C-alpha cells in the first residue's frame, strides 16, 4: 500500500493531540463513580515510576544497576513534568513539528544513523538497557488491589546523584506508563531514535518479555504514527506477537507488509523464523 506523502503526513500531524488534562480525567472518574455507584481506585495515572515500582519494591533500589537508578530518576522526573506539560507546549520540539519533519515511509530500507548525542538531557543519558530494567507493565486485570495513589511521585536525589530515594507508587505499569516511558527516552521521531526503540524492544524480546516489547513499540508508534519503521521494528513487533500467540495479528501484519514492501519481505521473514511457526509465515503470504 502506498504510504502517505510527506505533505499529507505533515497535514495530518498538524492535527492537535487532543490529550485530556488531569482535571478531565478526574472529572470523568468522578462522574463514572457516580454512575456506577462504586469508588474507582486511582492508579497509575500520575506515575511513570509505576514502571519501576515493582522492581524497586522487590529487589531494593540499592540492588539496581547505575543505569537502572538513572532510569528511575529520568522516569520519575519526567512524570512530574510530562504530565503537566503537553507536547504542544514545548515550542519547537512539539510533536506536530516533529511529525511535520518526517518523511513518508520509504519504499526501500532506510540507512539509519545512530544519534550523535544522547536524547535525554535531564540527567546523564540512560544506557540502551534503560527499557530492559523496567519491570513488565502487568496487564491491568492482573494488578493487585492498590491503596490510593499519591498526587505525584516524590523523587529525592541526594547529591551528587548516587542514591536517589524513590517513594514507589502503588500502581502497576500501564499503557500510559509506556507512553511516558517512550516520551522520556525516545523523544524524537527520527530514524535513529526509532532504531533505538526497536533495539530496546529486541532486548526485551530476547529476555522473554515479548509483551513488554510489543507495548514499547506500540507506545512509540502512538507517539510517532508517521514514522519510517525499519525492518527491525517490524520484525520485533511481529516476533513479539508470535511469542504472545497473537498469530492472527501477525498474519494480518505480514500480509500487509508483504504487499507494501515486497523487497523487504525476505529479510523480515528470516528474522521471524525463530519466533513464528511455519504455518503463520505461510499464511502471511500476500
Amino acid at each position: 500500500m502506498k504510504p502517505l506523502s510527506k505533505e499529507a503526513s505533515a497535514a495530518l500531524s498538524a492535527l492537535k493531540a487532543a490529550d485530556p488534562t488531569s482535571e478531565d480525567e478526574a472529572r470523568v472518574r468522578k462522574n463514572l463513580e457516580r454512575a456506577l455507584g462504586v469508588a474507582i481506585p486511582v492508579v497509575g495515572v500520575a506515575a511513570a515510576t509505576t514502571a519501576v515500582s515493582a522492581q524497586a519494591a522487590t529487589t531494593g533500589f540499592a540492588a539496581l544497576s547505575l543505569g537502572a537508578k538513572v532510569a528511575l530518576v529520568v522516569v520519575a522526573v519526567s512524570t512530574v513534568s510530562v504530565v503537566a506539560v503537553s507536547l504542544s507546549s514545548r515550542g519547537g520540539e512539539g510533536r506536530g513539528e516533529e511529525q511535520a519533519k518526517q518523511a513518508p515511509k520509504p519504499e526501500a530500507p532506510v540507512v539509519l544513523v545512530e544519534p550523535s548525542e544522547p536524547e535525554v538531557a535531564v540527567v546523564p543519558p540512560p544506557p540502551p538497557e534503560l527499557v530492559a530494567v523496567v519491570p513488565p507493565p502487568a496487564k491491568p486485570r492482573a494488578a493487585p488491589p492498590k491503596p490510593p495513589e499519591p498526587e505525584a511521585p516524590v523523587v529525592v536525589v541526594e547529591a551528587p546523584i548516587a542514591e536517589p530515594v524513590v517513594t514507589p507508587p502503588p500502581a502497576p505499569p500501564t499503557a500510559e506508563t509506556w507512553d511516558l516511558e517512550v516520551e522520556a527516552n525516545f523523544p524524537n521521531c527520527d530514524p535513529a531514535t526509532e532504531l533505538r526503540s526497536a533495539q530496546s524492544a529486541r532486548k526485551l524480546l530476547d529476555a522473554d518479555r515479548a509483551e513488554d516489547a510489543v507495548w514499547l513499540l506500540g507506545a512509540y508508534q502512538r507517539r510517532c504514527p508517521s514514522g519510517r519503521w525499519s525492518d527491525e521494528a517490524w520484525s520485533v513487533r511481529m516476533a513479539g506477537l508470535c511469542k504472545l500467540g497473537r498469530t492472527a495479528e501477525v498474519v494480518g501484519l505480514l500480509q500487509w507488509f508483504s504487499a507494501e514492501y515486497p523487497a523487504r519481505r525476505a529479510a523480515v521473514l528470516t528474522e521471524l523464523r525463530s519466533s513464528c511457526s511455519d504455518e503463520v509465515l505461510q499464511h502471511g503470504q500476500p
Partner: protein
Amino acid sequence: MEKAPDTADFGALYAGHFRAVWRTLQRLGVHPGSVDDAAQEVFVTAWRRWADFEGRSTERTWLLGIAIRVASDTRRKQRPTEPVSPELQMTGPGPESAAASKEVGRRVEALLQQLEPERREVLLLVDVEGYSVPEVASATGVNLNTLYTRLRSARQQFEDLVKREAEELR
C-alpha cells in the same frame, strides 16, 4: 446477574486507557463538549460488559471497539450545526503563529470532512492515532481486507485533497 469487575482491576483499566479513549473520541468527531459524557459511557459499557471480555482481543482494541460505537452514537445525537472537533487545531511553534496554525488546522479538518466517514475513521485511527489495521479490524469486526481498501482509498483521496489545497496550506 453478571459479576461486577474488581474495582482495582477496573481502576487500572481506566488509568491505562482513559487517555487513549478520550483522544480517540475526539478524533472520531465527538464534540469537545460531549467528550466527558462519551468517555464516561465507554467505561460504563466496559464495566457492564466486563464479563464478556474474554481476552480474544487486547483491552486496547476492546475499548477501541466500544469507543467507536459510542462515538458513532454521540455524533448522531449532535446537532448538525455543532462544529465537529474544533479542538483539532495545529500545534504551532509559538503563540505568535497560533492564529495561522489554527487556520491551517481548520483547513485540514475541513479536508478530512470531505472523506466518507468510514474512510476518515480508518485514516485517523491508523495514520494519526497509530492503531494497526488488524487492531482496527479486531475492534470493529470489519474484514481486514476491507479496511485495507478503505485505508488505501482514504489516503489517496486525502493526498489529492492536500495537493489541491497545498498552496493555501503553506
